[in-house]
């Protein structure tokens, strides 16, 4: 079983307590009614789906119930790091993650 670090509980907890909530850092437009169909499609449907590092929202639904963000590798399923919701996308990933990316 994967252990996922919850930034609110400040410890690693079993994956059964968590639920994935899609890609992170997708900003909703402040003027939704003024969006063109193309822009709305991009916001609503189009996801990056990369092979490798992905930034996702996760929820500790059976724990503290909080949403947070996680950096995960889609190839190895390894969690690189997690951070609280609302915090900016980390510009630098922890050192050992380079190894994960290279694979």
């Amino acid at each position, binding site marked *: *079983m994967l252990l996922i670090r919850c930034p*609110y*509980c*400040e*410890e690693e*907890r*079993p994956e*059964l*307590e968590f639920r994935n909530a899609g890609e992170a850092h997708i900003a909703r437009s402040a003027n939704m009614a003024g969006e063109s169909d193309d822009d709305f499609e991009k916001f609503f449907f189009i996801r990056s789906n990369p092979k490798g590092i992905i930034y996702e929202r996760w929820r500790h639904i*059976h*724990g*503290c*119930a*909080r949403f947070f963000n996680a950096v995960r590798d889609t190839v190895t399923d390894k969690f690189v790091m997690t951070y609280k919701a609302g915090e900016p996308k980390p510009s630098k990933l922890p050192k050992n993650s380079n190894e994960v990316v290279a694979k």
Partner: protein
Amino acid sequence: MAKAAAKTVATATSSAERRPALAGRTASATGVKVEVLPPAERISLRAPEASVAALSKALGLTLPKTPKTSASKGGRTALWLGPDEWLVIDEAGKNPLADCAGVSALHSSVGISHRNIAISVVGPAAEAAINSGCPQDLSLEAFPVGAASRTVLGKAEIVLLRTADEAFRVECWRSFSDYVFTFLSEGARDAAG
């Protein structure tokens, strides 16, 4: 006919009694005893950081701010569930909902006394019995006495509180109580075997 119906209703009202789910059910195996605990008063409390001091004063105990901890005083226990969420259990018969009602600081307190059922799991094999369906590390180092956490047991969500080295309180929704109790008794049997 109408008269008979009316009579039945009247009888039902006069003999109304509270019958908590699973009342009095117990199960034991070597080294562990699973038992349904008597009803208690409970509230679900949500509050921002700024209201915590006022609520702590009204409830008569300090609401814990550290993850996975609880605070207990005079039969009342507050369990940290999330950064702004607590489960307050009162076993002394006092109503925490009434205590919070007078607090003007922003908060939400909801009475959930009848929503939850508490099950005690006691004995040297209690840890193993709960671990049969709960994936958390329940060793004393990781989950010391007083530690509390919302987690899962099998397919149900539970709130777990360690009340002593070899004693746990398992809180679950009453509609899950049959499942949780049966799961724990089977877990107890496995842990004993």
